[in-house]
């Protein structure tokens, strides 16, 4: 599997310095392969999240295109792209992203229930993922009762439930203590070793120890660290 960004750019409407637009991401070319954990390093506001969202099919780029193998994401219409995202992408967003009306287990199962695919098998898989991420005993708890680290682990379990080809994580170790940071990064590394594409946007240098490749991002432009 190859996830490829071809001269991708994204501009937003904003009046600044006499121009009506500013580029959050500009002319990015990037190739990500199965089995690799790749880190994208940069300060806040450097465009990391925007790039991640474009890679996951949530944000259409203004220029260029995103390809998973030979499928051009943004040539699909919304329904097909959504289903494609459900099947091939696991997204771990920033912050507290969960449905408060569902339990931890139900949140993990959400990508399945959404497509009416919640079976005893998927439930067993969700439980296994919760055990693997170390929050198996919290299955019936509401997300509001979770700590930051537990919430992040839940999001990781949710991103893996459909056994996707690509995992995109946005600051997965932000606001975590050292111990939790290690647990989360190890987990993502294991996932990469199982043959997935893992791409992490971060400003946490601990990530480098686990990464197969590191990119730097600054003012919307990307540069590979040799």
């Amino acid at each position, binding site marked *: 599997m190859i996830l490829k960004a071809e001269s991708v750019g994204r501009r937003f409407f904003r009046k600044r310095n006499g121009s009506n637009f500013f580029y959050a991401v500009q002319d990015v070319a990037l190739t990500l392969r199965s089995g690799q954990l790749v880190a994208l390093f940069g300060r*806040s*506001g450097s465009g990391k*999240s*925007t790039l991640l*969202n474009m890679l*996951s099919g*949530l*944000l259409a780029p203004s220029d260029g295109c995103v390809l998973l193998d030979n499928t051009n994401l943004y040539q699909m219409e*919304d*329904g097909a*792209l*959504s*289903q494609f*995202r*459900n*099947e091939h992408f696991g*997204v771990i*967003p*920033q*912050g*507290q*992203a*969960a*449905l*408060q*009306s*569902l339990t931890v287990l*139900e949140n993990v199962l*959400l*990508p399945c*229930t*959404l*497509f*009416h695919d*919640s079976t005893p098998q998927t439930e067993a898989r969700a439980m296994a993922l919760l055990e693997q991420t170390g929050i198996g005993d919290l299955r019936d708890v509401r997300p509001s009762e979770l700590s930051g680290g537990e919430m992040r682990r839940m999001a990781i379990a*949710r991103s893996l439930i459909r056994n996707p080809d690509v995992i995109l994580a*946005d*600051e997965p170790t*932000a*606001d975590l203590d050292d111990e939790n940071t290690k647990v989360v990064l190890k987990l993502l590394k294991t996932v990469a070793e199982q043959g997935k594409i893992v791409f992490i946007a971060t400003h946490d240098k601990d990530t480098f120890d686990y990464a197969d490749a590191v990119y730097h991002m600054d003012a919307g432009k990307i540069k590979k660290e040799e």
Partner: protein
Amino acid sequence: MPIFKSIPVQNCVRRPVRTAALILLSAFLSFSVLAGSLVISGLRNGLNSLETRLGADIMVVPYEATTKAALSGLILQGNPGYFYMNKSVVDRLSSVSGVGQISEQFFLASSTASCCSYKVQIIGFDPETDFTISPWVQRTYEDELGDMQVLVGSSINAFKGDELTFYGSTVQVAARLDNTGTYLDTAVYANEDTIKTLISAAKEKKIFNFGDVDPQQIVSCVLINVDDGYSVEEVLNDINLHVKGVQAVQTQSMISDVAGKLSGVSDMTGSLIVVVWLLVIMIMSVAFFLISNERKKEFAVLRMVGASRKKLLSILMKETVLVSALGSAAGAALAIVLVSAFSNLIESMLDLPFLIPEIGGLGLITVCSIAVSVAAGTLSASLSAYRISRIDTAVVLRGDNG
């Protein structure tokens, strides 16, 4: 996946306070529209029933009866009353050209009934000539009404076999009549001989000032149907011109009084419904707007894990329809319970005949009310739902820490 575990249902069930508030709002919608429609259609139904039951083109009463307003009080409000004129009037009326069916009735007001001190109207009719009461009676009672037997209107708390005492004379209840929603429900019906016995008894007790009335020589009113080929107005004028001491009244004109009053009540009820609806829909729209703002993140998560815009819309719409259907059904049930339980109160407060529609009509009105309430609830949520389905997932997801 079982329906009760689906995402929309869970979203409602696990937010009981929010859901209850929305259910309450949509209950207001269906309650107001159904209660209003039931009152209006009950009044229309009552008017129709009155029209059918009056069943004669012309009513002839003693001249004093119309001036004392006793007539409309008796006919429209069911205030018990009595008035008499000499029996010879019937022969004089029969000779007026254009007079077809003709039948006399006798009125008496009881002073005390057996249970409660409340006046009851007693109406006597002649089964030989009667054409207004008999068709109605025959729906519940097929035999001929015997002497000292009575039929009771549906508003009277007496049943077949019960005995009632009027002026010391005991009569037996032979049957209870169908509900008409009109003054006829509060009356007791007897044949000519029975009522004459009762009038004599009343005269002996000297409770009313009957003067020198001879019970054998009187009638209270004469009902007339006009022959084909004659107009009602023509015959009416003829009677009022040529028969002394009586007043002929066109029943249709009494009904149009009722109809006029009814349209006033309808207009008021209608405007009340409009005001309630505008208010509730406004509140609901704002509520949905606030809720959807609060839930933006939730829907961004759904979007992230693969929900299409269409799917988001469908989840939100299902939630809305579920909540408004529950609320509308509850409001409708409450409306039916209250309006039917208090129908007698409505009738006496409005002073208009009131008859709740039969089960078929009732069902239709109920279904329509629930449908429009659900539609209104859905409509007030639709703008918020559309906004939600258009959310910029990327922006919402990065919301809390840049």
